[in-house]
């Protein structure tokens, strides 16, 4: 009985393969986008964890200079001879051809046990590592980018992408150094050693960082991705809900028969539940596969984004990880059950002989529209209230969520109002019918239209944010990168030569001095600048006191970047604790896009007075722009400076913009995919509704309309609904952009951006929406145009 019942229920799908496909594809798409985003997040997080764990940074204490100077090599030996179990590390970045790499030099002899295992694959080259052959361990991906370099590379999956791990001596050769950045301290030290405060008073012990700066910094980025992933999932779920609901209604006859034959309602529900689980499993697996491909497709861009924004290295290739595979399948189940829940709940309460009424199902949601509108209003008010109160990144995303959901729920009501208005203006019988028919189509299509609205609004919102950001960023780069050349020396001696060399050739050589301090428990970079027109005329100040530059020049005031300003909740005129025993009045705030950390700018001499040990290596050089490349060449050829030490303004700008553009490729791609899913939702809805549509259309056909004109009208209706949806999406998208720019960005990155609008993009999106809707409507319309008269006639003859 149960088996036969199950077969009877399942047979439904045999006659409606398209509906089955819609259901599975919808759920798979939803799961796929979600899983893809999760896979990306998971890959990135694992790479942060690896970076954080590299050389035991997550568990091992470090010894480092109190003023950020390197540690001389013999200091290490002296500490070892004193019995301290320490191990040296030298770190630096290096430009090798097209890529920048992080070089880490280690001493395998003293490496503490907890330092992350890094092993070259194969044993043959182990002696090479330390015995003068300069073996370098790299992630295979990095190796691929370095094939043309003269390096003795050996690949290892345990090295983070973008990093080179080598013996101290090899790393020194690469970095042209002879000292260390820090010493790792083994967790267990023998008893009875002389305290470090006595034998190394200039070094400080730094506690291990279990999470890693990177993971903390990138949290907001991943929250962003997750939010978009969730949006896609929600859009996909609309499809599933609509399809499952319809399938339930269409099977009422079968269910009625089964129950009449004595199958308990409970069994029927359990069978339907089993069917859902089965379908969810298939769709979930498909979704995970899809997610894998989406993630693999997007990951290189995400990796570039993260590298550009945070300087992190995430591999461009994807590993299969159980966490996102399992959550992917789980969310497919969750989504399917959520979608099927309402149907089952109604089924459980359905009287035995309730008639099969597909139309009633569609109309029922119309009756709900008042409640929907009320819920929408409540959500929008909540959103408004939260925007008013503000507070955190989470609030930001909640505002986004309530705004989008509220707007989506309001959509059917708005559409019906608009269509009623249209109907009132109709002059001919046909027009009257078209408007009325559209109105009655709204409930059946509302879920798909909501999905379309969400996708459009997200596109407008994110597009506006990105373009606004880009506009601001481009202008900001012009201000911020005012010097023609940025030159750094490898040693103070070379720096002296450099300054002497440039004194005749450049209009100005501005020192860039920096050290890391801690303000409010977070690392902040403290810069010292000389008074110069370069700063006075160009520096992008958001807030300033009247004589801000004079104040800084006099050593009586500090400029801070927007991130520090917002994070610390400072006001202009507040005193900032720069270092122990040193506070400085905040006299200006400048924008500092793309930088995750806080910055303070003070007078150069004052900084050097407090921190005399800061290396004097970096310089901004003002030369007539047309001479910039000649001076750069002279630095290389006459002074012997490595080209890697010279950054030219034009290159820096180009590089920054490239990074910027890649940064938002991912959100763009997700948006497009979401729009695609919305298009699919419309197709799914139209297809499932098309059988029902016959009874709407047949009477009109019978009284003298051709199938061709009916099909044309059908297409027109779908396009009109898409246009109306776009009209609703427009203000929602602009609100979304505002929330992103004024709330989410501030909380996530610490900067607020002005909003610019781009009407051409809206029109492009309108075209896209119409194409999506048109494509979605094409199949049902094509089928309608070719419907045999006999099919129409059946409407009038058979009892349904």
């Amino acid at each position, binding site marked *: 009985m149960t088996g036969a019942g199950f077969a009877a229920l399942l047979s439904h799908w045999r006659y409606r393969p398209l509906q089955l496909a819609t259901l599975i594809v919808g759920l798979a798409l939803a799961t796929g986008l979600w899983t893809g985003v999760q896979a990306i997040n998971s890959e990135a997080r694992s790479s942060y964890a690896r970076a954080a764990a590299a050389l035991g940074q997550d568990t091992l204490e470090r010894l480092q200079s109190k003023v950020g100077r390197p540690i001389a090599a013999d200091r290490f030996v002296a500490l070892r001879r004193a019995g301290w179990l320490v191990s040296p590390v030298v770190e630096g970045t290096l430009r090798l051809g097209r890529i920048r790499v992080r070089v880490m030099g280690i001493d395998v002899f003293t490496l503490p046990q907890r330092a992350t295992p890094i092993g070259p694959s194969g044993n043959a080259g182990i002696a090479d590592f330390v015995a003068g052959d300069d073996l370098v361990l790299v992630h295979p991906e990095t190796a691929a980018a370095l094939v043309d370099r003269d390096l003795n590379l050996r690949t290892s999956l345990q090295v983070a992408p973008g990093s080179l791990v080598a013996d101290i001596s090899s790393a020194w050769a690469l970095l042209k150094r002879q000292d260390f950045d820090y010493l790792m301290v083994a967790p267990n030290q023998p008893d009875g050693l002389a305290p470090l405060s006595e034998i190394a008073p200039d070094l400080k012990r730094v506690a291990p960082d279990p999470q890693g700066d990177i993971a903390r910094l990138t949290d907001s980025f991943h929250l962003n991705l997750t939010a978009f992933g969730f949006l896609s999932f929600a859009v996909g779920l609309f499809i599933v809900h609509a399809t499952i609901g319809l399938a339930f209604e269409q099977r009422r006859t079968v269910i009625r028969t089964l129950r009449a034959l004595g199958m308990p309602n409970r069994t029927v529900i359990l069978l339907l539940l089993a069917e859902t689980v089965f379908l969810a499993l298939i769709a979930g697996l498909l979704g995970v596969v899809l997610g894998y491909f989406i993630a693999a497709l997007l990951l290189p861009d995400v990796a570039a984004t993260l590298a550009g924004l945070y300087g992190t290295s995430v591999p461009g290739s994807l590993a299969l990880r159980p966490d996102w595979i399992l959550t992917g399948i789980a969310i497919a189940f969750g989504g399917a059950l959520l979608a099927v829940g309402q149907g089952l709940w109604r089924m459980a309460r359905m009287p035995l002989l309730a008639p099969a009424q597909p139309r009633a199902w569609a109309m029922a949601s119309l009756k709900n529209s008042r409640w929907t509108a009320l819920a929408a209003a409540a959500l929008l008010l909540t959103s408004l209230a939260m925007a008013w109160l503000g507070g955190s990144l989470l609030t930001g995303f909640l505002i986004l969520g309530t705004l989008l959901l509220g707007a989506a729920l309001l959509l059917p009501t708005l559409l019906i109002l608009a269509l009623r208005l249209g109907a009132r203006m109709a002059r001919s*019988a046909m027009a009257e*019918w078209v408007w*009325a028919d559209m*109105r*009655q189509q709204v409930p059946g299509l509302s879920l798909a239209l909501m999905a379309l609205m969400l996708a459009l609004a997200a596109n407008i919102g994110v597009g506006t944010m990105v373009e606004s950001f880009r506009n601001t960023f481009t202008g900001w780069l012009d201000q911020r990168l005012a010097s023609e050349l940025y030159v750094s020396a490898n040693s103070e001696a070379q720096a002296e030569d450099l300054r002497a060399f440039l004194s005749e050739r450049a209009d100005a050589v501005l020192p860039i001095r920096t050290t890391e301090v801690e303000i409010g428990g977070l690392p902040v970079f403290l810069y010292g600048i000389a008074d110069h027109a370069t700063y006075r005329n160009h520096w992008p100040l958001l807030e300033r006191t009247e004589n801000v530059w004079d104040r800084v020049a006099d050593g009586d005031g500090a400029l801070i970047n927007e991130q520090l300003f917002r994070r610390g909740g400072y006001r202009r005129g507040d005193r900032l604790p720069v270092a122990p025993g040193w506070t400085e009045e905040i006299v200006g705030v400048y924008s500092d896009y793309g930088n995750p950390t806080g910055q303070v700018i003070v007078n150069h001499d004052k900084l050097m007075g407090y921190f005399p040990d800061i290396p004097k290596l970096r310089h901004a050089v003002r030369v007539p722009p047309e001479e910039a490349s000649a001076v750069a060449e002279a630095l290389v050829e006459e002074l012997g400076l490595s080209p890697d030490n010279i950054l030219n303004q034009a290159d820096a700008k180009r590089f920054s913009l490239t990074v910027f553009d890649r940064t938002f490729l991912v959100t763009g791609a997700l948006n497009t995919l979401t729009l695609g899913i919305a298009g699919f939702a419309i197709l799914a809805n139209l297809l499932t509704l098309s059988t029902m549509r016959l009874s709407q259309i047949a*009477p009109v056909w*019978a*009284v003298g*309309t051709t199938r061709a004109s009916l099909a044309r009208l059908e297409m027109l209706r779908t396009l009109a609904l898409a246009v109306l949806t776009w009209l609703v999406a427009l203000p929602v998208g602009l609100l979304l952009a505002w929330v992103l720019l004024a709330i989410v960005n501030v909380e996530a990155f610490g900067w607020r951006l002005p909003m610019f609008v781009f009407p051409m993009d809206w029109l492009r999106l309108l075209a896209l929406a119409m194409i999506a809707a048109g494509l979605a409507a094409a199949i049902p319309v094509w089928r309608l145009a070719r419907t045999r008269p006999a099919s129409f006639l059946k*409407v009038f003859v058979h009892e349904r």
Partner: protein
Amino acid sequence: MLLALRDVRKSFTTEEGPVDVLKGISLDLDAGQHLALTGESGSGKSTLLHLIGGLDGPDSGEIKVAGADIAHMDDPQLAALRRGKIGLVFQQFNLIPSLTVAQNLAFHARLAGRLDPDWNAHLTERLGLAECLHRYPEQLSGGQQQRVAIGRTLAVRPDLILADEPTGNLDEDTGDAVIDLMLQLVADVRAGFILVTHSTRLAGLLDRRLHLTHGRLQ
């Protein structure tokens, strides 16, 4: 001659092969004449009606409505025929669900471009629909729905009215009332009328009566 059929044949393809539904039907109907078409279920009477109404085309033979052969008309011509010359009343799903009763009543006539508000008002009253003009079809009883369908058809004043079991879904009393009303109104507009029914009692109410058995007229 309003309607002339000559040797009309129609077959349908089913899973068991082609089935000849109409095996050479010839029939004449004068203007204003009322004909009852009876037959067993599956005898082909509905198919015959659909062919006459231009809803479907015959395999062979000739169907002339007011002198025009509709067997060779294309889609737009057939649509024009249905719009202006022929009125159709079906057993169910006659009405356009998204339009009100008033809109439904006027729909066909407006489409045909010959809406006569006075005549429509007259029909509404005769049909007893004044109370429910602003309701939607699904809010009406079966009898009311069928009266709206009749009203809509008569509003056009077509030359030929075809009805396929119009009372099939109604109880006998309601059905008789609807048929009575229909016959009176059809007579009023002097239209030709073909009623397909399986009820000999109803058939007896009409001028002529033909019986269809296995695709042939008797």
